[in-house]
């Protein structure tokens, strides 16, 4: 099972798509590791630098509604994975992206908008970090001297995939 939690990258916009996460021109790479430099390359957000230290240090991405819409490319979760990001927290996800995350043993966690609004208040905190406990379904946000815990739900199947480390081994054993 992967580890979850650490510094948070705040991406405060809905409908962040897979072309923004990893542009199609890099889909010709054959290994996941080769994708590493291109993370979020085409995402244009005020104050966001895909090559900056906040991106480099991040272990968790926090965003808004319909995250990961567009293409089916699993290169999107992979480019997060090879950069050390194993969890994305958002109001909602595109179906394929969400499933790809769990299929890779990573976490795509949905929270209500009100909770996300609270989490985004930490966007200016240099020490903003999150710890995530998949088993108990809780995440704790800390930063700026404050700390708050939120509950979340993931389906039993998704939890099993995270525990098993992904879908291939699970499926080969069970089907």
């Amino acid at each position, binding site marked *: 099972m992967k580890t979850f939690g650490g510094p948070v990258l705040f991406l405060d916009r809905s409908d962040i798509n897979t072309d*923004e996460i990893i542009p*199609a021109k890099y889909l010709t790479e054959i290994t996941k590791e080769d994708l590493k430099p291109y993370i979020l390359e085409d995402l244009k957000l005020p104050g966001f630098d895909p090559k900056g230290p906040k991106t480099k240090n991040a272990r968790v991405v926090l965003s808004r509604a319909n995250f990961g819409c567009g*293409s089916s490319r699993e290169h999107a979760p992979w480019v997060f994975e090879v950069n050390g990001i194993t969890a994305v927290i958002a109001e*909602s996800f595109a179906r*394929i992206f969400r499933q*790809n995350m769990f*299929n890779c043993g990573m976490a795509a966690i949905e929270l209500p908008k009100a909770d996300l609004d609270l989490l985004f208040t930490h966007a200016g905190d240099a020490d903003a970090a999150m710890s995530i406990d998949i088993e108990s379904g809780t995440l704790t946000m800390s930063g700026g001297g404050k700390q708050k815990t939120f509950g979340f739900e993931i389906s*039993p199947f998704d939890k099993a995939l995270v525990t098993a480390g992904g879908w291939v081994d699970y499926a*080969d054993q069970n089907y």
Partner: protein
Amino acid sequence: MGKTVAEKIFEAHLVNEPFPGTKVLKLDVVLCHEITTPIAIDDLIRRDKDRVFDPSKIKAVIDHVTPSKDSKTATQAKILRDWARRHDIKDFFDIGANGVCHALFPEKGFIRPGYTVIMGDSHTCTHGAFGAFAAGIGTTDLEVGILKGVCAFRQPKTIRFNVNGQLPKGVYAKDVILHIIGRIGVNGATDRVMEFHGSTIAAMTMESRMTLCNMAIEAGGTSGICMPDATTVEYLWPFISGEFASKEAALADYSKWTADADAAYDQVIEIDVSTLQPVVTFGYKPDQTKFVSDMPESPVDQVYLGSCTNGRIEDLRIAAGILKGRKIAPTVRGILSPATPKVQQQAMHEGLIDIFMEAGFCVTNPTCGACLGMSNGVLAEGEVCASTTNRNFMGRMGKGGMVHLMSPATAAASAIEGKIADPRKYL
């Protein structure tokens, strides 16, 4: 209580429900291309599981970058090619026989009503035009599909679209689906199947139904689905005539894959197309739509005709009808990529290729190429493309480029005028 098409297909293909709400389905077809499959193949080899569940149910094509443009794309093609040979996958399509997957595979008769279809490509929803459940998935799901012939899904809810009325002149399936996406939004159908009903759909060709279902994903939809009918049977007849005594018998059999009148829907949405106009996108999301007549003056640098949305023979006929005897604006680069070799050859026989070339279009081989900015028509920073494709994300056709989505007719009119133009004056 009656059932939706997706509910019927799920019931007929259910392997088990390992956890509440998760259904593992048996797959009828697993489709593969050279962008998302090689990493699955590589991973299977590394896991010492380089097997396929049934080579006759796996179909593969090199389509995104073909002919290969560099060493990396040549390597991707080679991995897929070698794998297809190694596992005796007979339905493998390479240079000379290859075309855009979602146009090529239906043309070969691989998709039938009631089928479950997956592919590592989001526009797999296209195949729902045949009354199939067809979903785009990632590489890991593809890998398991190849290995085991199964895929896990949450049982999707269904939105029913009752689309009625006669399409006005100059308005096509592309305008209908852009209008629908504009109305429900880019996540209006997330985790939902989009079931299309009504007189407009019943009157559509299979090509038009594929255009419609192709863009279900742009509203977040898992699959578009049209009801199989006499049009479906007619299209499939060359492939199924050995299975059924008559077309009537085929239709009777396929009708089990239509929705029950008392099926329960998440939503029912009524669409009247009788007053619809040509639609175009204006932003970087497919739900940012306007009538062409409401667009401000919008010059374009390139016009692209092709893709899994609108690269079929019907689309080429419509565009050629407008371009015949006319020239494209000198400021515009026109690119036509017929979706398959069959489409290209048919267009040649019908004299359409002559019309495009005399108008000033460059005609490429069948490929996905420019649609996702991989080859054959990448935009430069700041350039604008009028395109018959399905996705207008920022940079989609080239970093810093902008894409306006539209029908082949609107694209042809825009090529002539060098700016987004209403096709109706040319009809």
